[in-house]
């Protein structure tokens, strides 16, 4: 389909431009780390830092999409589903914590009035009297966090394995992911009493007693996000450099041959799909902690497809590019919504067309070209 992954980087390049590009590639993770851990927090005020943190949360699914799409050849238009799973599980925990806390405003007075203490406010409004069973485990942080890490990849693995075993691939699988993301959004909006409906779950104050509104907490959460994100990039890189990554690329380029060589291609594809789901879920959970919201508007097909454009802008073969892509596209979104809202949709619509037509390898592709030009002239 596309150019195979190039992991080996070239020798010494004489021209300045290509040397810089070469450095950027070799030390990409370090550069990214310095940018995110030092430059961004030092140069932005707390409000803008909060925005940056939000963008970085969207970088998690984008990094996953590079693995799944760029290297696995599977286009998932349903990553919002996994983002949403992480986001909602975290929101359930936070909501229960603030509902149980007598100091918080989160509907406790109301709940107490109705004789249902400890119940989230929106359930009271929907006259649900008892906490539904699937909310119970999320009283405990040590169930919530493992659930965020385990459940979405598990769902993804089963979904992927079942479909890939049956050779449901390519466009078909894409439509299945699209449909499942749609289902999840429909169910969340439809079951208002259990999920908060279209308004989502919001209005939480603390995470394990830590006040989320003060600046220190915001910095702490930002740094946790960055560290997790860098970890995700490193895990992705480790997978791609391992034998597993090589087999994955082989499957992407010639699935039949890989299968005839004895590889269980469904297993490989399902595995990488699960890794992508894990990243998306972690991103969703960090999003909910920092933005204070879990919403169906981040689950359905529109946000799911938007997550793909982050990876496409950065370059579908570049894990680090996905982070820059998420940052740039979301930055553009904020810029448009602050200045001329109505043009945002034109912009992102045109972006899909432009990137696919003229920049199939994204920004990372431009870097590659620069290096090639440098090499030729040198």
């Amino acid at each position: 389909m596309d150019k195979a992954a190039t992991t080996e980087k070239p020798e010494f390049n004489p021209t300045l431009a290509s040397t810089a590009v070469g450095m950027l590639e070799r030390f990409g993770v370090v550069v990214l780390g310095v940018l995110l851990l030092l430059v961004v927090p030092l140069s932005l005020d707390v409000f803008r830092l909060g925005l940056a943190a939000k963008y970085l949360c969207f970088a998690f699914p984008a990094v996953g999409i590079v693995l799944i799409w760029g290297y696995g050849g599977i286009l998932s238009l349903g990553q919002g589903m996994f983002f949403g799973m992480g986001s909602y599980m975290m929101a359930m925990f936070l909501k229960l914590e603030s509902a149980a806390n007598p100091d918080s405003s989160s509907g406790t007075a109301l709940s107490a009035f109705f004789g249902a203490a400890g119940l989230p406010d929106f359930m009271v409004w929907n006259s649900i009297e008892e906490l539904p069973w699937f909310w119970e485990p999320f009283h405990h942080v040590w169930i919530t966090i493992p659930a965020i890490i385990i459940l979405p990849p598990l769902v993804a693995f089963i979904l992927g394995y079942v479909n890939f075993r049956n050779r449901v691939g390519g466009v078909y699988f894409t439509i299945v992911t699209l449909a499942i993301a749609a289902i999840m959004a429909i169910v969340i909006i439809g079951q208002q009493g259990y999920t908060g409906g279209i308004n989502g779950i919001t209005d939480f104050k603390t995470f394990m007693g830590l006040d989320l509104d003060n600046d220190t907490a915001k910095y702490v959460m930002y740094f946790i996000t960055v560290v997790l994100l860098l970890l995700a990039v490193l895990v992705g890189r480790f997978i791609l450099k391992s034998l597993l990554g090589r087999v994955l690329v082989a499957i992407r380029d010639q699935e039949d041959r890989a299968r005839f060589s004895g590889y269980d291609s469904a297993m490989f594809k399902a595995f990488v799909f699960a890794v992508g789901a894990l990243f998306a879920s972690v991103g969703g959970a960090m999003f909910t902690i920092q933005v204070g919201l879990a919403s169906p508007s981040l689950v359905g097909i529109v946000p799911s497809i938007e997550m793909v454009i982050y990876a496409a802008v950065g370059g579908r073969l570049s894990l680090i590019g996905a982070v820059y892509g998420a940052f740039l596209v979301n930055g553009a979104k904020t810029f448009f919504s602050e200045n001329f809202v109505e043009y945002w949709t034109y912009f992102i619509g045109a972006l899909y067309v432009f990137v696919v037509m003229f920049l199939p390898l994204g920004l990372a592709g431009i870097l590659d070209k620069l290096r090639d030009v440098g090499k030729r002239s040198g």
Partner: protein
Amino acid sequence: MFALQAFTGLSVFSILMLMALGLAIVFGLMGVINMAHGELMAMGAYATYGTSVLFEAYFPSLMSIYFIVGVVLAFFATSVFGYFLERSLIQFLYKRPLDTMLATWGVGLILQQLYRQFINPRPVEVPTASWLQGVWQVSEDVSFPMSRIFIVGLAFLTATLVYLFLYRTRRGLLIRAVTQNRGMSGAIGINQKRVDAYTFALGCGLAGIAGSSFTMLASTAPDTGQAYIVDTFIVVVFGGVESLLGTIMSAFFIGQMQTWFEFYLSGSMARAGILLLVIAVLYFRPNGLFATKVRR
């Protein structure tokens, strides 16, 4: 009661079928999924709306037949748009079907915003012609609204015309030849580029007709198309591509299921239930319910 439910299902089926047919023809021929299909349906609906506004202003005496003009206009507007879309964008992406989905999604977003900015951000409605307003009183408690009968009729007429076009004309023959064996049809001198372009235009035109008949059932908003797109894809996948009969059957099943589920469950749960059911069926029939057995 039963008859009424079944009939409501039939009109849902008609719209689904019209939308899915267009998508299935394009997908079968070129392996391309057009994510802007929903917006093309909205374009057809807006063309019909535009016709009604024009007729109201200039030929009020002919209001009773505006809808028929609207359907024809909707077909031509969307198919011309489809033709240019294929020439300017899709034709470069045949080797990359997944990328085509992204690019057409972008086109869809742009169209949506154009509708919002230049037509109306709020839903628009078309007037129903007087002869479509009545009901057909079958018995004391069973009555069918005329507008729905008209939609079903229009769907059957369109399906028949598509069938005749594909199986009884020379152009249809060429389309089937390219669908079945792209390499060989090229070798015997069929101009595939032309076939691709007008097939894509045909598929888009069918979406336009679907949108036109959709205006009889509900109002049209800029994001109407997006709400229907997933269901349409599911119809195509469920039916099995390369089988137009399969698409029609699958639209029939899903349309019927939709109305029956809605009878017992809430609307949103019904939709979710159907989508889940279809995904489950795909597990057992990965190539769709009515796929012909082909060795690949």
